[in-house]
């Protein structure tokens, strides 16, 4: 449904997106994972046809979004990184007016708007002003708005950034339901748990390039171990202790604030650390996550 070949976007010398290629089949939930400034949002804007690519090819449902912007976007729902709700209109009017932009008739829009308010749990806020809504409510309204045209492809740019945990889970639930109904989801995120929860497949992006591609489980399997042991010895000692940990686990990753030991069995690794007479201030055994994949691929963590 979406096909990108050597897609690039340059701003002068700066390569925001540098020759990336990917294909997304219908109904898939596809993620772009990477730190801020990796080129995720720029890619999203090119898919929406509101940003012109420097080179490469891009088709959405067989059409070039630059040549056929309005037609492609008729089937697209977009949730931008920053809410751009119409502050001059009330909550329900935001949905109705947005629907009019698609040329949809009022007879369709009125019941649809009510249905979406229900979906976003905003029914009792229908006639409230937008700036009276909380951050989570605004986000839900933005998502509701993106569904007004019953899109086949939904673009979500950092959908849950800035939300509290409860609001995030409500959103994830809503997105999961959409996915179940066959909507293709394209989402960018720098949250590992979000990518793991929502994405069938993802690409790890850094500095405008694709570093790896696969399902979350596949990526973890290929680029990390099953478990991770996190040790803290205090910021002074982390680097000096790292030398003494040599040979434990498959791989060692000393970070400024902690040391990560990648191992199939992290409990066993911890036992060995203690057996060597080392006393970490804190220790944590956990499953490997996409964060570790990213760290492995780029040498940097996702959230700085």
């Amino acid at each position, binding site marked *: 449904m979406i096909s990108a070949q050597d897609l690039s976007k340059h701003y002068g010398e700066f390569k925001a997106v540098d020759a990336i290629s990917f294909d997304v089949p219908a109904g898939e939930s596809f993620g772009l994972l990477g730190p801020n400034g990796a080129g995720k949002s720029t890619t999203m804007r090119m898919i*929406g046809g509101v940003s012109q690519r420097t080179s490469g090819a891009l088709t959405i449902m067989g059409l070039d979004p630059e040549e056929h*912007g309005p037609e492609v976007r008729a089937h697209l729902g977009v949730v931008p990184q920053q809410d751009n709700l119409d*502050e001059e*209109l009330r909550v329900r009017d935001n949905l109705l007016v947005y629907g009019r932009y*698609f040329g949809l008739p009022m007879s369709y829009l009125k019941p649809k708007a009510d249905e979406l308010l229900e979906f976003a749990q905003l029914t009792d806020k229908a006639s409230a002003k937008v700036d009276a809504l909380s951050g989570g409510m605004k986000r839900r309204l933005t998502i509701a708005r993106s569904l007004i*045209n019953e899109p086949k492809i939904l673009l979500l740019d950092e959908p849950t950034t800035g939300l509290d945990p409860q609001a995030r889970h409500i959103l994830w639930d809503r997105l999961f339901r959409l996915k179940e*109904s066959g909507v293709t989801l394209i989402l960018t995120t720098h949250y590992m748990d979000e990518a793991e929860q929502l994405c069938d497949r993802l690409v790890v992006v850094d500095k405008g390039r694709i570093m790896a591609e696969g399902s979350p489980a596949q990526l973890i399997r290929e680029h990390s171990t099953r478990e991770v042991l996190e040790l803290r010895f205090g910021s002074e000692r982390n680097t000096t202790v790292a030398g003494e940990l040599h040979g434990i686990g498959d791989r060692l990753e000393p970070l400024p604030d902690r040391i990560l030991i990648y191992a199939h069995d992290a409990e066993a690794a911890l036992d060995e650390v203690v057996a060597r007479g080392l006393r970490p201030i804190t220790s944590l055994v956990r499953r490997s996550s996409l964060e570790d994949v990213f760290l492995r691929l780029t040498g940097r963590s996702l959230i700085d």
Partner: protein
Amino acid sequence: MTQHLTLEDYRIQASERRLTALYSRNARAVIARGLLATRSSNWMIMVSGFFEPVLYLLSMGVGLGALVGTVAGPDGQEISYAAYIAPALLAVSAMNGAVYDSTWNVFFKMNFAKLYQGMLYTSLGPLDVAIGEIFLALLRGALYATGFTAVMGLMGLLTTPVALLMIPAAVVVAFGFASFGMGITSFMKTFQQMEWVNFVMLPMFLFSATFYPLSVYPQGIQWFIQALPLWHGVELLRQISVASFSTATLIHLAYFLVMIVVGMLLTTLRLRKLFLK
């Protein structure tokens, strides 16, 4: 959302129309949004824009006019100073409203309210947005012109029914400025650059034969003023106000028709720069 999507649903048809990337023939949705927004929050700004030329007319026309007495109108007949400057003020208010709407307003909605960002992620193309915004600016201009003409009537400054043609003429003047203003905004990146718009507008307002005849200037300056759009607007409305038509009237009108065509062309060519980066 209730039915599961199939591959069949993912097929879309490409349209063969021209300008399809820029225009989806739905500017009315932008207009409807503008009217709704005005109704629910912007009406105070609307009202203040109406009073500005009225206050000028009262202070300059009535106040200063008491000192000036009468002056020669376009057809050589003596008219009151208020009747002399009123059509000029109408032209100025058409210019100000149109320029404000097509420059500052567009700039703000573009860069701060992110309104167009939302619109352009729908089926709307940038040309729909531009046409819708220009139409709204003209509608507002028409309302102001009607109100101002009514005030002129109340003050006894209307001597002929032909003067009512000032209302459509003011809309033509506004159209010229609005189409050009939007094209110019596409080149603006910062607030400092936007200030240049005001820097050009104020002297044009003061020196375009608004408050006194062009003949006070030496020849060279006269030519310069005559090249500027506001002078043509002022003269056009002034001639209509006393029903004194000549070939000059047609030239003034033609000036604006050319300005509209060139302005719309510029705006269309710059749409991608204005709205899509």
